[in-house]
């Protein structure tokens, strides 16, 4: 089979894996070919707006499993192909030299056995590292159930490993991927997590409750990369398919935060279940809106970088689903109006991060600017803080919102496209009345959200 036909088939087969990150490890060049910059580079964008950073292919899309959501399941009559490890290595090198990619993301259908499959993946990475002396980024899929020895080898060659959890619950997995074993996937994650931690033990991890774990582990610290027994220096990630089963956003986030905590994952990718060719009729015939994926990422960010707890996010959902019309941070703020407004000139970093419209970067800028003087509304405007969203929640040197402004929260909405949360808002007669608890719009809102 011609190499370009194989490439077409095996790229087609790989495109439902959302991860394309090449970040998390910084490594100087080896004088030959390749380095890693720590941040990752998107070398191109496909017309779906997605970043192309790595050569993302399957070694083969032959597969002995029959996972309903997967285009490569044994019962699908998609065209099949198989690369040799040599072909994968050559292709990676040719693309890399022309600056098309940051490296390789190699996955595979399960052929023969988990061990056989894993061995093939490892061999491709080994060729790249040892024969081609390739020093760029490698992400390998860890096949659940593969032996500890093969995982060990994979971690030696790869920067990142990932075992996909696939679905948020055991039941979902049994239903859609009968051959996969939830506990086996977790066992593989645990194995990797142990090895990653072991290879990092030269670097003390400072536990700071204010900071999410992922921020405390510095991937670019030189100690780790100099460690001779380096194991997957960019850590591990996973992917969860969203919308193929009835599991709610809160359930999904619950699983995600458990994985973050237990196995110190660097990323959980949420992949909106996408219609695939050779669709299985037992799956929903409609893909979930991409907005759902977006809201999950926003919530995930709040958990990891904004100091939010899962139950806080869950408290501002609509029966376990994140609101479509309001981002999760605004939703939380609206159901906790008593905590606002917050004085940007006095508040702690933790408090600032709670203000709708304020991102991590602007929070840090505000803290830096407080050294020079007191911030005014105009300063925030120059920082391009979206004031229409943030204003009711903040106090600046020259601005103090009336309680009624916080109650008259339509300021936070963006036109008629976001009405649902506020439709039930009672007419606000005046500041005095709104302070009366029974009519407090925040209460009404909270009730309507919880009902």
């Amino acid at each position: 089979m011609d190499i370009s036909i194989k490439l077409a088939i095996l790229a087609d087969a790989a495109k439902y894996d959302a991860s394309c990150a090449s970040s998390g490890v910084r490594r100087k060049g080896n004088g030959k070919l390749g380095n890693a910059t720590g941040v990752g580079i998107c070398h191109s964008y496909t017309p779906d707006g997605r970043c192309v950073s790595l050569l993302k292919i399957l070694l083969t899309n032959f597969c002995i499993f029959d996972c309903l959501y997967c285009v490569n399941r044994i019962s699908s009559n998609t065209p099949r192909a198989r690369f040799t490890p040599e072909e994968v290595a050559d292709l990676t090198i040719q693309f890399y030299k022309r600056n098309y990619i940051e490296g390789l993301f190699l996955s595979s259908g399960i052929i023969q056995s988990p061990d056989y499959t894993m061995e093939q993946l490892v061999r491709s990475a080994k060729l790249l590292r040892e024969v081609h002396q390739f020093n760029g980024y490698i992400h390998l899929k860890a096949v659940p159930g593969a032996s500890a020895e093969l995982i060990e080898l994979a971690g030696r060659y790869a920067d990142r490993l990932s075992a996909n959890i696939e679905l948020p619950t055991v039941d979902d997995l049994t239903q859609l991927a009968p051959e996969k074993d939830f506990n086996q996937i977790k066992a593989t994650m645990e194995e990797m997590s142990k090895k990653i931690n072991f290879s990092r033990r030269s670097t003390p991890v400072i536990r700071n409750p204010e900071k999410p774990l992922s921020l405390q582990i510095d991937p670019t610290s030189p100690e780790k990369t100099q460690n001779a027994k380096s194991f997957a220096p960019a850590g591990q990630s996973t992917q969860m398919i969203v919308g193929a089963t009835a599991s709610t956003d809160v359930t999904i986030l619950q699983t995600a935060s458990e994985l973050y905590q237990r196995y110190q994952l660097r990323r959980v990718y949420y992949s909106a279940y996408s219609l695939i060719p050779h669709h299985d009729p037992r799956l929903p015939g409609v893909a979930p809106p991409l907005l759902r994926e977006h809201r999950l990422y926003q919530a995930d960010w709040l958990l990891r970088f904004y100091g939010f707890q899962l139950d806080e996010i869950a408290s501002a959902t609509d029966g376990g689903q994140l609101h479509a019309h309001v981002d999760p941070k605004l939703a939380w703020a609206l159901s906790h109006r008593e905590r606002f407004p917050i004085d940007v000139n006095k508040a702690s970093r933790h408090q600032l991060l709670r203000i709708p419209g304020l991102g991590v970067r602007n929070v840090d800028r505000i803290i830096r600017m407080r050294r020079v003087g007191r911030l005014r509304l105009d300063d925030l405007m120059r920082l391009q803080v979206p004031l229409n969203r943030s204003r009711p929640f903040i106090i600046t040197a020259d601005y103090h919102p009336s309680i009624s402004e916080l109650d008259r929260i339509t300021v936070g909405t963006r036109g008629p496209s976001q009405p649902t949360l506020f439709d039930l808002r009672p007419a606000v007669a005046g500041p005095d009345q709104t302070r009366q608890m029974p009519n407090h719009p925040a209460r009404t809102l909270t009730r309507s959200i919880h009902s």
Partner: protein
Amino acid sequence: MTKTVEFDGTFIGWRRAAGELLRKSIPPDQLYWPDPYSQHMGLFESVPTQPSQNTGVRPRNSSVSSARADAGVVEKRTQPTVPKKAWQQLLLLAGRVCYARHADRYNLLYRIAWRMRHGEPHLTDALTDRDMLEARKWDAAVRRDAHKTKAFVRFRLIYTDSGTGLEHFAAWHRPTQYPLRIVGSFFADRFAAVRWTIFTPNEIAFWDGRQVHYQLNDLNVSFKKWDNIESLWQTYYAHIFNPARLNVRAMQREMPKQHWDTLPEAAILPDLISTAHQRATEMQNHIDDIGSLNMARRSRAGQMATGPTTSAGQS
């Protein structure tokens, strides 16, 4: 009386010149900083804009200005000392702003340095100060452009030395700023074992295996050469794309049209976009077919002799 600063236009050059001018206490409005890139291109005349009126170049410093050139001790008494960290912040900023496509950039940086020395030692923390805001804006532009240069440079194999096997690559790239000197070390580190040249309309960078050489693109050299790996790359690009998630705006925001000419994969973009809807619809129809077939099968319980074969064979 305006004095033309003699320097080479690089960040190192600016730093050296600015340090000396600060020591001599020459105020920013007496200086003209020539721009090597725009002069060479003849596109932008380097007319130094006047320092903005309210940016705080304060006259009360006149007594300090007349002090001796190496008047560090005197200055310490009359002016707050600029912390080392603040100077470092300025230099970090200047390291990028020097390569912004803006005729006033060197002057702006010097004005900030001047203000820091003359009464505003913490100016680099005043992120919304007018000069700082301007500098940060240009900094962001350069940063983005440098990143996009690392991303969008596409090397083509020009020739392979038959004796040594050494490969020579070249790229033609059109940045929005002047990022080559910022990204040169990145390419040198990543592609150490080959030889490469990056052509831009203003400047050329060449890696000889030991160091990167820079020169202005005096002859406006560019090149076109086909590299047969590019068709494989196009194949990959076409097949990693999911037509069911078409989002041209998001793609274009990150990969502006300005770069399409120099990206081999962009050649097939129009095709991919125009057929995406049809491909997604076909997939949906196929799924609906299966769905209705199943319903029919359920309702007619076994009378379905044909089976769900309608489009199952197509991909």
